[in-house]
């Protein structure tokens, strides 16, 4: 079932949490709402669920082209996974998962045997069959999260909403769980929206990433697209590390290696990812920037260098391939030339159709 959000606004007192949000989540996709804390992503998720009401106005929320704005939470047929799981603490894992089935009106409620089968099937799906009789407080964080997911899936939701599903877990469990969630989604194909502030998580798991900031949507697109072609400086900076260069447009060409701003026609800001910087001991291009190595973090797949520009003292972060790092025999204090491979220019926040 697709989800369509039209002209949704939400204010809390004088604080604007959401400003005229429009979004289409295609049926069967896994979509990430990504943004810094306070950007309104959780509020948007809760409005989709019905736990929160949007400001009155001409806004609409459509599930499969049907307006659900006036429907209660219970009638929207959604599954919701809470950030801190919100498992029923006095119920066993089995009863938690069975809850959604046992509260159905008598006419729609499955029989005891059937409930049992369905719950055990779900527990198998989340690999927790052996824990059916345990209580939530006896489980690890990752197990609780899986119980919460099984509980949400028990009512066969048309839409699955997850609020920071892996936020409270440690790094390793997080990685395992998000891959598992991706596989699960590929099996079930239920339209899913999850909220996260972790760009890596959003890029790795989702079909579409919705980058949000200050109550607005900055960009929507597949992970590769938002990463490689950010719509604006915010998206660029939010999705991974980035170097920022100030420059100017000179005779129709954007330049970043000149300091003299007095003759600028128009100021530009250029961004480049650390792994898109070439370093060498000799000047290989006229655009190369001279810099000195200040720190080297050699641990990890790509050794990271912290460099200081000779001309204006600004620092640059660069990542070089391991082979290249060994070949150059880099030391702190070395004098290097840095050449950006993939610069993106923005003039007053808008992308400039020009790349080196």
């Amino acid at each position, binding site marked *: 079932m697709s989800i369509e959000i039209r002209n949704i606004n939400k204010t809390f007192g004088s604080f604007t949490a959401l400003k005229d949000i429009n979004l289409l989540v295609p049926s069967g996709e896994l979509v990430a709402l990504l943004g810094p804390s306070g950007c309104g992503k959780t509020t948007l998720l809760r409005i989709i*669920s019905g736990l929160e009401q949007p400001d009155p106005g001409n806004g609409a929320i459509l599930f499969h082209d049907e307006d659900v704005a006036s429907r209660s939470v219970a009638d929207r047929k959604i599954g919701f996974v809470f950030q801190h799981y919100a498992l029923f603490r006095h119920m066993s894992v089995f009863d938690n998962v069975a809850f959604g089935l046992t509260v159905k009106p008598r006419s729609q409620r499955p029989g005891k045997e059937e409930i049992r089968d369905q719950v055990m099937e779900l527990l198998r799906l989340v690999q927790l069959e052996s824990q059916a009789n345990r209580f939530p407080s006896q489980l690890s964080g990752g197990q609780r999260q899986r119980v919460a997911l099984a509980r949400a899936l028990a009512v066969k939701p048309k839409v699955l909403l997850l609020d920071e599903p892996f936020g409270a877990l440690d790094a390793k469990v997080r990685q395992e769980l998000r891959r598992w969630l991706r596989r699960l989604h590929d099996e079930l194909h239920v339209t899913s929206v999850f909220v996260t502030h972790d760009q890596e998580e959003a890029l790795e798991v989702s079909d579409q990433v919705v980058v949000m900031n200050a109550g607005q949507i900055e960009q929507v697109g597949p992970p590769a697209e938002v990463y490689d072609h950010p719509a604006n400086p915010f998206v660029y900076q939010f999705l991974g590390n980035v170097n920022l260069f100030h420059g100017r447009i000179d005779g129709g060409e954007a330049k970043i290696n000149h300091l003299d701003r007095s003759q600028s026609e128009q100021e530009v800001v250029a961004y480049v990812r650390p792994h898109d910087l070439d370093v060498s001991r000799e000047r290989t291009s006229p655009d190369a920037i001279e810099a000195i190595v200040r720190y080297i973090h050699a641990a990890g797949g790509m050794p990271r260098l912290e460099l200081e520009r000779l001309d204006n003292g600004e620092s640059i972060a660069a990542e070089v391939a391991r082979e290249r790092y060994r070949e150059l025999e880099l030391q702190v204090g070395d004098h290097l030339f840095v050449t950006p491979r993939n610069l993106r220019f923005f003039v007053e926040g808008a992308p400039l159709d020009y790349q080196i």
Partner: protein
Amino acid sequence: MAATISMLKGASNSPVGLARSEENVWIKRGLIIVTLLFLGFFLFLPLAAVFSAALEKGFGAYFASFDDPDALAAIKLTLIAAGIAVPLNLVFGLAAAWLIAKFNFAGKSVLLTLIDLPFAVSPVISGLIYVLLFGLQGWFGPWLAEHDIKIIFAVPGIVLATVFVTFPFVARELIPLMQEQGSDEEQAALVLGANGWQTFWRVTLPNVKWALLYGVILCNARAMGEFGAVSVVSGHIRGMTNTIPLHVEILYNEYNFVAAFAVASLLAILALLTLVAKSLVEWRARQELAAALEPTMIKD
């Protein structure tokens, strides 16, 4: 008292460095002795005195004290007052705690303070409030007299005073617990399709049942033992508007010591039962918590 001793023991075990020294052993013993003396003097001695005075003339005289119709009427009235006040305050306490813990609204802190009011004012004043409201010279007095409704110096007044004095107990037990638990579980239940009623019975209530029971026990003890507020509105009409504590006072003032202490022993027994019930509830709640916190050996 056993709890006090074990608590003292437990306390001395925690600061490891201190526990060893000779000096601290004496501090510990000294504190135990002081505590025992204090409890003995202020608790056990009076309790023993009540029972010994009640049984001074043997069991026959003791049980004869309850054969008196006035005594039976007092017991009945106490049961009626508690029987109305406790359920009423259970419902009120739950509603107030739910309101305060799960909703945000202007004046919340004022409401919290108001709930504590009966703790803050003297019971005599609590009784006087009702005299001023419903007494013959009170605000509603003339109207009530016209319609031949008696509140003051009658059973309704006693019930009202008891309800007023005991209403914080249940709410006070529940508010901190419900605030700590938040409303995530209720929201989860709603999303899963439960209606408000199902959410209350299957999620909210089970989460607070032990605190609720604890509050009810304390509320009941106070409702049965209340003297001051009830005394003001009662009028001390024998066999009509006397509760157990008031009946004890009358008997005592008449130098009928055996009967006075015999009836008083009922209240003492009630207090002891309350303590036992309270410990049981605490023990059950701890058991449940311990069972829930039992570490899991199975890997993620």
